[in-house]
């Protein structure tokens, strides 16, 4: 059901490109409603049109075919389902597999990172892109790993390359610090990260400071790049499960969910009701655990030590419950195609019943300890304010978007599994500052508690597997998106019908959310940088993939 503006867009597209290159798709089967192939030069015009209709750039990636690279743009808009459109641009291969596209960074600033990623992974250059540095790989890398002609590095190259990088690092220091160094100017650059207590992993933010005031901030990512996308191309579909457990290790269940939805969509299968219920149950518990971890570390960043321990204590109880079902504490791979790894044990539901009232009481404690704390309010109110325009241009999703007053939640707006039948609210705030992000997340925990309660009340009996399924996924393209704890997690799959994916693109929420930092940080104080970084709730391996 394309909405009104989607139809406007479609008719505009039909005028802009050849009619046979715009196709309506079945969102149930492919996850997108509209597909168009536009000329290389026209993409900027098309992107502007999408922006004017209120679309954000959900992902930008490429696929390697024999004749050309296909640049794939996914646009989506906030609101009810049925808007995700896919626009393709062909970038024909020249000699030595070079190709080029046209940059849309002037329309969508979030495209800067996406285009840099496509450049470093495929070697596709973008006209009008002035920063073609490597994004995820070390600057001196000489490979374009996602090209199909890249057949892996020779044995032992990890050590030789590492040693080379160490050497470069040392030389870099000698250049930066010559023997007699006297510098008397105001340019004060500060590296926050990769090893820094408040960058939550290995994020590096290069701050340009004037005293304590931030003039400019550049997030530098890739310190946790684990080649998930290439790795999945050489694995069969079943072997990809552990990757999804480790992408976002704090909220791994949502990622499991995304992959399960994708493959079930591709295969056209429907899991049994008990499976759907258990999936929602564990995902929501995991969401609470993820928000708890966020809350603890966020307050740690603000200098409040004790909430960290309280939050982790509650989180441990949730992990205990999830461990009953999965046997794992953190990096779950519990879901299977059309089913689950195993049924939940009998003692799990009583354990949840015992946990929930206690947790609700603790939520009240957090409110008195944190929410009403004067210092906390002073540190977070009016800090790191993001505007709706920034959010749209950077494709921000999840609690950060909802803190701007946009009630965009895929569980509600692009419903999957049994979410439509559940009664819960999508909490929003209006300020868009750090404080409202905090409020949204705390209220989301309450909503998740509500969902968990409903699910355990009506948990149906039945099978937890569909039995034997084919090992390959039908040839075609599929897209699935779910609401993870951090925002919209999308997977774009090109299947050639074989036993392993031909191309799999992971659209992760924090990638876009972090990118928007560039707009938010200037003007903050150094202390605010920590608050803003913490409020974004980043999980680095999910950004670096």
């Amino acid at each position, binding site marked *: 059901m394309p909405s009104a503006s989607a139809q406007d867009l479609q008719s505009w597209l039909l005028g802009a490109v050849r009619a046979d290159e715009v196709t309506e798709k079945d969102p149930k089967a492919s996850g997108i409603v509209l597909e168009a192939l536009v000329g290389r030069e026209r993409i900027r015009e098309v992107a502007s049109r999408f922006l004017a209709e209120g679309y954000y750039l959900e992902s930008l990636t490429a696929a390697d*075919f*024999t004749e050309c690279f*296909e640049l794939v743009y996914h646009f989506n808009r906030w609101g009810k389902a049925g808007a995700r459109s896919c626009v393709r641009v*062909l970038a*024909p*291969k020249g000699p030595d*597999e070079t190709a080029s596209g046209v940059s849309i960074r002037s329309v969508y600033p979030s495209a800067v990172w996406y285009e840099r990623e496509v450049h470093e992974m495929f070697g596709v250059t973008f006209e009008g892109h002035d920063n073609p540095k490597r994004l995820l790989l*070390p600057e001196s890398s000489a*490979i374009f790993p996602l090209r*199909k*002609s890249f*057949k*892996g*590095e020779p*044995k*032992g190259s*990890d*050590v*030789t*390359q*590492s*040693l080379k*990088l*160490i050497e*470069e*690092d040392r030389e870099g220091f000698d250049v930066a610090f010559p023997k007699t160094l006297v510098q008397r100017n105001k340019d004060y650059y500060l590296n926050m990260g*990769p*090893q820094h*207590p408040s960058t939550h*992993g*290995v994020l590096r933010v290069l701050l340009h400071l004037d005293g304590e005031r931030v003039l400019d901030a550049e997030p530098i990512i*890739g*310190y946790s*790049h*684990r*080649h998930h996308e*290439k*790795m999945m*191309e*050489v*694995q069969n579909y079943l072997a990809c499960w552990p990757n999804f457990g*480790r992408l976002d*290790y*704090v909220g791994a269940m949502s990622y499991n969910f995304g992959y399960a939805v994708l493959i079930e969509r591709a295969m056209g299968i429907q899991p049994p009701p008990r499976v759907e219920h258990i999936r929602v149950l564990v995902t929501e518990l995991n969401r609470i655990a993820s928000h708890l971890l966020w809350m*603890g570390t966020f307050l740690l960043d603000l200098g409040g030590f004790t909430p*960290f321990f*309280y939050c*982790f*204590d509650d989180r*441990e109880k949730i992990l205990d419950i999830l461990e009953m079902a999965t046997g794992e504490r*953190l*990096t779950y791979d519990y879901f299977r195609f059309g089913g689950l790894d195993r049924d939940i044990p009998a003692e799990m539901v009583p354990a949840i019943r015992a946990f929930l009232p206690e947790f609700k009481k603790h939520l009240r404690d957090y409110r008195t300890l944190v929410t009403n704390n004067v210092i906390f309010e002073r540190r977070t109110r009016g800090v790191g304010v993001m505007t709706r325009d920034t959010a749209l241009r950077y494709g921000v999703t999840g609690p950060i978007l909802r803190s701007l007053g946009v009630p965009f939640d895929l569980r509600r707006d692009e419903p999957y599994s049994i979410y439509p039948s559940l009664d819960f609210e999508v909490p929003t705030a209006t300020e868009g500052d750090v404080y409202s992000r905090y409020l949204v997340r705390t209220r989301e925990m309450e909503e998740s508690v509500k969902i968990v309660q409903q699910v355990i009340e009506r948990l149906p009996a039945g099978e937890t597997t569909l039995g034997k399924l084919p090992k*390959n996924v039908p*040839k075609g393209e599929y897209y699935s998106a779910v609401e993870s704890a951090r925002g919209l997690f999308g997977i774009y799959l*090109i299947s*050639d*019908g074989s*036993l392993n994916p*031909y191309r799999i693109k992971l659209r992760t929420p924090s990638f876009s959310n972090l990118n928007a930092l560039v707009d938010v940080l200037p003007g903050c104080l150094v202390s605010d940088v920590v608050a803003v970084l913490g409020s974004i709730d980043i999980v680095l*391996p999910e950004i670096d993939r």
Partner: protein
Amino acid sequence: MSPGNPHLEKNPDYLKTQDPAGIANFFHVEDVFNLARANSLWPLTFGLACCGIEFMATGAARFDFDRFGFGVARPSPRQADLMIVAGTISRKMVPCIKTLYDQMPAPKYVIAFGGCAIAGGPFKYPGQYGILEGIDKIIPVNVYVPGCPPRPEALIAGILQLKAQIEKGRTEGVMSPATVDDSQDARPAEYKNTISRADFRKPPAPPAAPAPPPASASTPSPAAAGPEV
């Protein structure tokens, strides 16, 4: 100790991260210091990936490694004794880890925490391009804690193991050779060739359409090995 590691071949005495002190073990003074060092291992606040979360959990309320005196996690390497390499080591991160290790004052110890830090863990596959398969190829490691991720109890056990080693005076770590037998080799078996776009995008009509001419140097591959759609 470990031939074949180019790092070691360049710096043959690399494993001796420390030059012995002037009055080493004069009246067993070194033993006293080792006893103190063993009971006061301050870890560097440093998490790389999933295992970093378990490292945090170990410090948190339920497991509380401050009970054993390891709770003073120092974010500055100057004040840390123990580097817990918790997580996957991407190659971009390697120089940074090496720098941090160098910057820790002697005597210093390393725990390789989790499969990734030990040998690449689940992210090792033939021909991988992104990670370093094991931190012990770059810096000497004292204790390995396996798991993916290991449980907090395992980390505590690992630190206690290190403590026991230091009390016995065994403070040197080990390094591994650059390649071990089960390490990556460039087997291109799973690596696919490109498929033709025209072939892939072809509307699902009669099955045996003629394949379009190949446009690049790579060999044209049949549509797929899988069964029919």
